[in-house]
C-alpha cells in the first residue's frame, strides 16, 4: 500500500514539476488574495494585525481548493483514473499518494504565504513550536478531506461549483481551529493553541481514516 502511495505521489509531483501550474498560477493567486485583503483593510493597521491568522488560513483554503481541483483534473482528463484503476493499485494507496502530493504542494504554498504574511502584514513568527505542528496537522486535514471530495467531484460537469459547496463546510473546522491556534501563537498565549492543535489532529485522523476506507468505493468507476 505504501509503495503504491509513493508511486502515485511521485507521479503527481513529477507532473507538477513539469507543468508548473501550481507555481505559475496557484501561488500568484494566493499572494494576490493576501494583497487584496491588505487593500481592503489597509487604513487600519491594527485590524490587519489582529486578523492576520484568519486571513492567512482563508488564503490557504482558497488556494488549496485550486490545488485540489487541479490534482484531480489531471486524473479525469487523459483517462488516468481508468489507468489507475486497471493498474491494480490498492485504492488506499492511491488515496495516500494523492494526499501526500496535495499536502506537499499545500505546504509549499503555506511557506510562501507565511513569508507574505510576515513581509506584508508584519506578523511575528517566533513561536515556531506551535506554528509548525499546526501547519502540518491542518495541511494533512485539508489534503485528506480535499482528496476524498476531489475524487468524488472529479469528472463531473458541475465539479467547479460542487467541490467548494461540499468541501468548504467540511473544512470550516480546520479554518476555525488553525486560525485560533495561530491567534494564540502570534498573540503570545500558546496555552490554548495546543487544544486547537488537538482538534486539528482529530480532524486529520478522521478524514484520513474515512478516505482509506471509502476510496475504493469512490474510485470504482470514476
Amino acid at each position, binding site marked *: 500500500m505504501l509503495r503504491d502511495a509513493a*508511486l502515485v505521489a511521485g507521479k503527481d509531483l513529477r507532473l507538477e514539476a513539469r507543468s508548473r501550474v501550481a507555481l505559475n498560477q496557484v501561488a500568484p493567486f494566493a499572494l494576490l488574495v493576501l494583497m487584496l485583503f491588505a487593500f481592503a483593510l489597509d487604513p487600519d493597521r491594527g485590524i490587519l494585525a489582529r486578523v492576520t491568522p484568519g486571513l492567512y488560513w482563508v488564503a490557504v483554503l482558497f488556494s488549496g481548493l485550486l490545488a485540489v481541483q487541479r490534482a484531480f483534473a489531471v486524473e479525469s482528463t487523459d483517462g*488516468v483514473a481508468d489507468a489507475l484503476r*486497471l493498474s491494480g493499485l490498492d485504492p488506499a494507496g492511491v488515496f495516500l499518494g494523492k494526499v501526500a502530493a496535495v499536502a506537499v504542494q499545500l505546504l509549499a504554498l503555506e511557506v510562501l504565504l507565511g513569508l507574505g504574511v510576515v513581509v506584508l502584514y508584519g506578523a511575528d513568527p517566533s513561536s515556531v513550536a506551535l506554528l509548525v505542528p499546526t501547519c502540518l496537522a491542518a495541511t494533512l486535514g485539508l489534503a485528506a478531506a480535499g482528496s476524498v471530495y476531489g475524487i468524488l467531484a472529479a469528472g463531473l460537469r458541475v465539479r467547479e461549483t460542487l467541490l467548494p459547496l461540499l468541501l468548504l463546510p467540511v473544512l470550516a473546522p480546520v479554518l476555525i481551529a488553525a486560525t485560533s491556534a495561530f491567534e494564540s501563537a502570534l498573540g503570545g498565549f500558546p496555552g490554548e493553541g495546543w487544544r486547537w492543535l488537538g482538534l486539528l489532529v482529530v480532524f486529520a*485522523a478522521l478524514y484520513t481514516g474515512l478516505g*482509506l476506507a471509502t476510496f475504493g468505493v469512490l474510485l470504482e468507476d470514476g
Partner: protein
Amino acid sequence: MDVTPRPAPPEVPARRGSGGRGPLMALALVALLAAVGFLLVKQVGSASLYFYNADEAVAKRSQLGDRRFRIQGTYEGTATDVAADTIRFAIVFGGEKVVIEHTGSEPALFQPGTAVVCEGRWSPDGRVFESDRIEVKHSEEYKAENPDRVDPAAP
C-alpha cells in the same frame, strides 16, 4: 510510473459488490467513532472559549491586554446610567466581581439575577470592562410563572 495492467494478487477479493467491503467499512466506522470519542475526551471541560468567566478574566487581565473577548457572570445589583446610552453594572462569577460599562442597548431579559455574556475589552486602567454587546445566557431551567408575583398591580 508504470500503470500497465498487472494481475491482481489472488488474495485480494473482488472490489465490487458487498464482498470485501465489510472489513473496510468496519475500519471506517471504528475510525469515525474513535475520532469522535477522542474529541469528546479532549474537549470536555476545556473549551474552545466562547467566553471567559469573570474570575478567569480577572486572573488573565494582564495577558488579555486590550484584546476583545467575551466575559460571563451573573448580573447583580442594578444598573445605573453613567452617560446618555451607557450603563454601569456588576457581574459576579466564582467569587470575583467585575464592573461593566456598557454602551448600547440591552436585551429584554436583562434583569438582575440572570447570567449575561458581555463583549468588549478591559479599559486601559483595567478597572472596568467596556462592553458594547450584551447577550443574556438564560438557564436551562423552566418554571411556571407565578401570576401573583409577576403582576402585583392587577385588580
